[in-house]
């Protein structure tokens, strides 16, 4: 069995603001093994980015409160000292961010930014050695003329090349966990496909565990082994890729699957949408957070459904919905495809 890298247990993150307490993450539980890609799917405000940044201690601050546990190879991250975290960041857990132009320092050369990371963790490496390593990494992620380009500044790179540089930087110390936070969202479609191909190569050739944060179910289908679906701070469903796509248990997942455009099929007459808006995380609805937008809600939804296995044959397929499994199978079927509601007008 592959080595267990991460064990997250009932993670809770909240931020105190002037308007009240924002419960950004409310009960997230998952594991990550070596060599697998775990996708965290959700829309803005779902808590997917906060979850991944919390693993690196990047959400710490005077107004942040944490509960639960997040362990990297058995070592607790939530209570780790800032110094311990420094050793973990970049070396054990590395991160690729969404917007490569704002995520790279504008005033330092690309190569130097990679060198800085390498030398932050090992002072014995000389600048020259680190630079050579940086060039090697840049070549590996497909940056042409890497030695010359390493001396360029981020604004002299195109969006795609910047993201490649970010990936090179994240890989520089062969981290066990790689977190990619919407790495393709800010890029053009053809470049998106290139970066996605790059991440897939990575998946095949390294034994890191990858957490891929995204809102795009198409990308998920392309890359993930397992999927977590988040809504308004909570995990509403998690399971293997096929379980989520072919036997989705939560109405929110149905809604998401229903609203994705498929290039290979005729489009529906009317675009299926999820009615309403996501709730405020300060004054979230009682019970199931999706209840106000869910056409299938009933009395029991006023209670928070626990995240548990409800499909008999799939013990690792968890969801937070009170509906009966058999009932769900008929409700989600709309004209041969999965959707939230029959008349989505």
């Amino acid at each position, binding site marked *: 069995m592959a080595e267990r890298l991460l064990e997250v247990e009932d993670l809770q993150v909240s931020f105190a603001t002037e308007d009240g307490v924002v419960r950004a993450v409310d009960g997230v539980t998952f594991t990550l093994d070596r060599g697998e890609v775990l996708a965290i799917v959700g829309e803005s405000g779902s808590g997917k980015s906060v979850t991944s940044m919390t693993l690196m201690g990047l959400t710490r601050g005077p107004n942040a409160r944490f509960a639960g546990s997040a362990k990297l190879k058995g070592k607790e991250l939530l209570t780790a000292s*800032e110094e311990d975290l*420094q050793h*973990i960041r970049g070396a054990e857990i590395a991160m690729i961010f969404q917007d490569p132009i*704002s995520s*790279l*320092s*504008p005033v330092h050369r690309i190569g130097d930014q990679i060198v800085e990371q390498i030398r*932050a963790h090992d002072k014995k490496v000389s600048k020259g050695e680190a630079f050579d390593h940086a060039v090697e990494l840049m070549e590996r992620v497909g940056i042409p003329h890497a030695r010359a380009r390493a001396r360029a*500044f981020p*604004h002299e790179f195109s969006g795609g090349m910047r993201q490649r540089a970010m990936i090179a930087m994240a890989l520089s110390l062969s981290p066990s966990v790689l977190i990619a936070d919407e790495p393709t969202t800010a890029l053009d479609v053809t470049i998106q496909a290139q970066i996605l191909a790059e991440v897939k190569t990575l998946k095949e050739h390294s034994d890191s565990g990858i957490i891929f944060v995204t809102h795009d179910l198409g990308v998920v289908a392309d890359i993930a082994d397992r999927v977590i679906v988040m809504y308004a701070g909570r995990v509403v469903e998690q399971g293997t890729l096929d379980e989520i796509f072919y036997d989705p248990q939560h109405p929110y997942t149905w809604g998401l699957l229903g609203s994705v455009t498929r290039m290979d099929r005729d489009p529906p007459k009317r675009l299926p949408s999820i009615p309403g808006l996501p709730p405020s995380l300060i004054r979230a609805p009682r019970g199931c957070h999706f209840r106000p937008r869910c056409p299938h809600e009933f009395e029991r939804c006023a209670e928070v459904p626990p995240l548990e296995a409800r499909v008999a044959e799939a013990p690792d397929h968890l969801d937070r919905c009170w509906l009966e499994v058999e009932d769900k199978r008929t409700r989600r079927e709309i004209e041969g495809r999965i959707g939230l509601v029959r008349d989505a007008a």
Partner: protein
Amino acid sequence: MGRFIVRRTLSAAALLFATSVVVFGIFEVIPSYNPGRAIAGRNATPQTVAIVNKKFGFNQPFYRQYLNTMKLIFTGQIVDYQDQLNVVSEFKSRFPATLSLVIPAALIWLIAAIILGSVSALRAGRFADKALMVMAIVGVSIPVFLLGAVLLYLLAYKLTIFPNTGYVSLTSNPAQWAYYLILPWFSIALLSIGFYSRVLRSNLLDMVNEDFVRTAKAKGLSQQRVFRRHVLRNSLMPILTMFGLDFATLLGGAALVTETLFNIPGVGQYEATAIGNLDVPPILVGAMFTAFFVVLFGALIDVVYALLDPRVRLTG
């Protein structure tokens, strides 16, 4: 770079021209302004005034007077009306005193502001930050003449730690030089420390939320390194612009209150006297002197900007 120098030189010339015309023009329209009478003296006969007017060309049309004055300025022959001193040599001999006052004061306020602004940002919302904020507001709201006077009264007159007023040149006695200037330095610097440190603090707090700072943290850099290399460096740039302009105007004589109060024979003191007497030549030269420094430091700051930030290109 060549383009930059050429363009800046041209804009400097244009600015000097505009400044001189405006300053000269202002006095032309001031109703109580009568240089001939001022030079001739209070009890002068109309004949004397007429002679003076003729000698100095005050009867000539505006543009002639302007051209004559410019010619005198650029040939270094201009004299002030009050004491018939050569204005250019007066500026030359007084400039070292102004430099002695302004350069150390600028260093004091810049360094202090960087330290205090950083502390304030790193301790945002805590006691140190709040205390510094109160100090900054007090510093900003006290006018320089009051602060200077209070310092003089307390430290020079009551406690006699520092000399009363006066100036000793650096070349004759460095220790005395510093001793005499400490109070003036601080009375200039204190105001700016408050203001600069507040601006830096807010720049720093904005910068901390930048994505690339998050990346720097995610790389596993120590907090100090993240702060020094990524946060502070980018936050200093707006401060630099302010600093360049403030420094330039002080060199041009904007420290006139401090110089007058502490009796420092700098260009500001000379300008203050000239303003009191409506003595056009020193005022005009002072304004052009300031404009020159403003352009020069504007250009220097742009060069520094381009060195610090590779995205910035030098444009004219």
